[in-house]
């Protein structure tokens, strides 16, 4: 996926126009080697910012939040089987789940890729 098409949260998730959700390249780098991914069940209704997945490195577990409200439509079983995909292809094969957004307009309120880069600079300096 082209990162330019994605919208980002301050908790480092991204969401594509079709509702696909993953974590940012910055996040995978900070988490380091992902060794385990726990995904939500399809059909689960989630609120915005609700924890609905877990990504774990050797050292720690990280909650992954729903970027917007909606329903879990599909999960990436490949990532569950091979968690290193999150590190290798954070914007591609390492996606986590896909959601049906309650209101696609919610996504537009999130940061653009450019906005996210600015946010990262302000957050780390």
């Amino acid at each position, binding site marked *: 996926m082209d990162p330019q098409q994605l919208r980002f949260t301050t908790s480092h998730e991204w969401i594509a126009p079709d509702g696909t959700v993953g974590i940012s390249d910055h996040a995978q780098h900070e988490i380091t080697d992902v*060794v385990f991914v726990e995904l939500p069940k399809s059909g689960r209704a989630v609120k915005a910012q609700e924890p609905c997945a877990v990504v774990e490195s*050797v050292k720690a577990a990280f909650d992954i939040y729903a970027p917007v409200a909606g329903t879990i439509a599909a999960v990436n079983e490949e990532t569950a089987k091979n968690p290193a995909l999150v590190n290798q292809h954070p914007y591609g094969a390492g996606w986590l789940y896909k959601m049906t957004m309650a209101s696609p307009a919610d996504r537009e309120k999130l940061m653009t890729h450019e906005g996210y880069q600015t946010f990262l600079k302000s957050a780390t300096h």
Partner: protein
Amino acid sequence: MAAPPMTLQRTPFYFLHQQNGARLVDFAGWEMPVQFEGVMAEHRAVRERAGLFDISHMGQLWVTGPGARNTLDRMVTNDIVSLAPNRGVYALLCREDGGVVDDLYVYCLGPERFLVVVNASRVDADIAWMRERLGPDTELEEQPQRAALALQGPASAGLVAGLSQELVSLAKNGVVEVPLLGFEMVAARTGYTGEDGFEFFGPAGHVHKIFEYLVKKGKDAGLVHVGLGARDTLRLEMGYSLYGHELDETHSPLQAGLGWAVKLNKPFFVGQETLRKEKSAGVARRLVALRLTDRGVPRQNCPIQFNGQSVGAVTSGTFSPSLNVGIALGYVDSRLAPKDAAGVWSVVVHGRAVPAEPVVLPFYRKQRG
């Protein structure tokens, strides 16, 4: 009142770690590398080739003098009276009530000369505790400007061969005080990974030369820098205890499964009487090793269940890079989960009881052949 600002201590290798891309963290008051390239890659490098660890944070205490051997024998749980020169032994310092003050290595470098290597987080507690109990004709002093390195992995012996043949001919737990590259230091065939390897102790300037030598020598052998992250996964795969996790002042070495390092029949050590009683009465809780049989990564404080009942909690847990499963150590109530009782084990991870099976340590055994 607010605590005064803490300044983290730095080892002599701090700037080299920065240059080598380390991610640095606070560990026991020291700014230490947690990882360089990545925990998984570093872990595998140590199992397959070789890794270099900065362990300068660990305390180096010299116990010397005509009374040194007797003093140490009365302080620690293992047998120091019969510790031969050029040999090292694992032991524990206990309180009178059997609680563990620290776990450590005692190296005998001569009839009146011992190097005791202790945990960074316990240096001050150990020194205070030992000073109170020093016997006659015994000196205790910290190694000035200490530094230390661990070289671990199957390629280690090949890498040190050029330094001194004495190193290569050392047996496991052997130790020598020897000039290397012209500088006197202590070198031991010990480590905390389950692999063959060497540890070097001495003043910073001397150990620094070894660092440079090994990095250069190790280039072709695939030597990597290793941080505390992989140090932890490597030790946990072997089931080695870590102070602050499996060991502390509220747990005894018998509960931790370290009875092999506790000589209840020697004349005396602090805590011996309590531990004798505990041994005959049976331990109230015991350390178990569990390997998850389903997906999940156990972490410290995750509840441990036996036949559906909560019986204890995880003290150390991780994803095992060698075995590709979650592994954990933890204490359980001996009454609720008796040794050798058949039953179903699980570890509660993120609110889900993940099935597990008890393991006779180590979790990881080297493939032979």
